[in-house]
């Protein structure tokens, strides 16, 4: 069995308390392998369908700025923990499609992604479909996907802070 050297790790993350374990794990793998860590955030604006609103251009821009800000926080935290090479990628559109595209385009060897939670919050993936999606991702992108089980969020976790 040959071990493929890891040069780039993608951490697909939405941020917030539920992403805490995913980010921790990605940082740990990056530190262990010395690979470049890329945080990846997809800005999907499907929720705007709830608001009958025409001026989406400005709103998209604002959402993009917010996503960028959140990614900058993650990058700072990773650097503070000793990751030498870290950056972020921000895209807009459908999360599944963008994840697939990224897996193929970047040539990263590892992707770290959080599993859907059992909480009542809206998830991008349902637990049942997640495994099939990950299998497709590994096959199409020729990479290894590390799935992280999110830690349960306590009320006090929500009282402050973003990720570790």
């Amino acid at each position, binding site marked *: 069995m040959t071990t493929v050297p890891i040069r780039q790790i993608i951490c697909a*993350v*939405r*941020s*917030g*308390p*539920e*992403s805490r374990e995913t980010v921790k794990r990605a940082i740990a793998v990056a530190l262990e392998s010395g690979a470049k860590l890329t945080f990846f955030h997809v*800005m*999907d*604006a*499907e*929720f*705007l*369908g*709830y*608001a*009958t*609103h*025409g*001026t989406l*251009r*400005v*709103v998209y821009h*604002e*959402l993009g*700025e*917010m*996503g960028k*800000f*959140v990614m*900058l*926080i993650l990058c*700072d935290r990773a650097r503070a923990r000793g990751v030498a090479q870290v950056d972020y990628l921000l895209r807009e559109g459908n999360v599944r499609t963008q994840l697939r595209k990224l897996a193929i385009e970047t040539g990263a060897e590892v992707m770290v992604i959080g599993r859907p939670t059992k*909480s*009542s*919050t*809206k998830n991008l993936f349902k637990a049942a479909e997640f495994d099939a999606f990950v299998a497709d991702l590994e096959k199409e992108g020729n990479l290894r996907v590390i799935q992280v089980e999110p830690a349960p969020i306590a009320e*006090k976790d*929500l*009282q*402050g*802070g*973003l990720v570790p």
Partner: protein
Amino acid sequence: MIDEIRAQVRVWLAALGPGERWSGLRARVRKQFRLSLLTTALLGICLVLVLTPRRVRIEGPASSQLEVGTAMVMGSVQNRQEQAIVAAEVAAVPAAGGEPIAEGLTQTDGRYILVLPKGLPEKLTVEIRRDHYGKVAVELTSADIGSLRDGRPVVLPPTVLLRSRGPAFWITTLIFLAVLGLMATGKQHNTLAALVGVASLFAVSYLGSPVREDLFIFDFRSALLYVDWNVIFLIMGMMIVIAVVEETGVFQWLAFKSYQISGGRRWLLLAILMTVTGITSALLDNVTTMLLMAPITVQIALALGMNPLALLMPEVLASNVFGISTLIGTPTNILIGSYARISFGGFLWNLTPGVMLALGGLIVYGEWQYRRELASGNGASADLLQKLSERGRIVQPEELRKAGWVGAAMLALFLLGDRVHLLPSVTALVGATALLAWIKPDMEKMMEAVDWTTLVFFIAIFIVVGAVQEVGVISYVAEGMGWLVGGNLVLAMLAVIWTGAILSTVIANIPFTAAMLPVVGHLSARVPGAETKVLFYCLAVGSAMGGNGSLIGASANMVTAGIAERAGFPITYAYFLKKGAPAVLVTVGLATLWLLLRFYVLG
């Protein structure tokens, strides 16, 4: 003109690469064509409206055609709520049977005149019928017949038509409930849900009535009479103004300025953000305010190391509460103002003190509810705050200055326009046009900023609610509420406020408010003391503040939840209910106290 077009085409071509020229030009022409088509359609609608006679055509003779001594029967037709019934068919029929000898329709005030021919029969009956009502026959007495033969007119007492509940009644009710259900579940876009309702109503009317006459609901022309074009044009005008303002970066600047003024004290930041968001929502609209304030609020919270929901939730609650202090602050106020002819100043003077009281209560509630989040946190990050300061600035100062002047002029017209019978929709359109002419923005971009989906939504909702009104559902609700409250003003106020508040948490408040308007109109005419339009103010308070009770209660809630979720802080239905429902009790309670003080105690 042709030279100008040629010059414009040359500019376009120069801006494009050689390979792109024709495809690019075609795309631009297509876009322009679509835009022109849309504008033409809109102007067409306006033209039709202008040219459409406002009054129902009466099939009687003009007074100049009447000879002295012409036999005439006059009267009026009304429903049980003493409202005029328009376009009821009235016919004078010989009691022995046979064809009517005279026919007519009731006017908008419910009156009719039948001009009878000479040679009247011994007995004559006046038959009155209208779709969705039971038929009534009034037999003329021999004295009446005698008067008519002598050439003296006969005036009959007002005739009351009773509603009939046929298949059309039940089908319309089902369609209305289905539309509300589709909106509440979020399975369909609100506009699509409303359009499905409209299509179903017409399908039943046009395809069903040839098979069974009692399936007829209304025809296209009658349906359009229910659309309030004052509302549509007011919303459209305000959309254009907002489209200009939101590009200037003023929302982001306001949010960041709030942080700066608070000096990093979170409790103060929360109070300032709630106040700023509230005032902005009153002058623009809640959804735009939250769409543009929420992302930067999330960033401020993260930079301060605190849970963004501690700022976002109170912010959206304040937005929904303060919006009702002006005519243009919420779509429900626009509906109420147009229907009840309440001016901008009317909302301002009668509701703003109560709204400020409610906002005060809401700030206290927000501080208490999020006391832990406001007290804890990882500490502010100087780097992140520095990054934020670069974003929190005005990006188009010149445009903002111009928009400020036009906005101030519009505000003055909104306030004073009522004295010269200037409709708010006219003020909004004039203001929007002036702003466009002054700033000269990319017209295509500006027209894209007009949310046609919302305008179609409103048109469709007016038609759906019109159908419910047409078949009599609203009359039954009005009668029921009238019976419940009796003649008691306080009871009526409480019923309207709290019914609105409770129902707005579970159903979309725009169709709800539209449906409640005639009900409140009926109560206002019946309950002593309600002629001050107090019940309409109660409806404004209930339907808008009630939206804070659940995630689906207001569009602003949904977009805020969407933005929070994108930052990794989801707002679930249960979470919103937990934080929002007590807020409804606090704010609606305080607003109720104000309304009772203003209209009952002070009079």
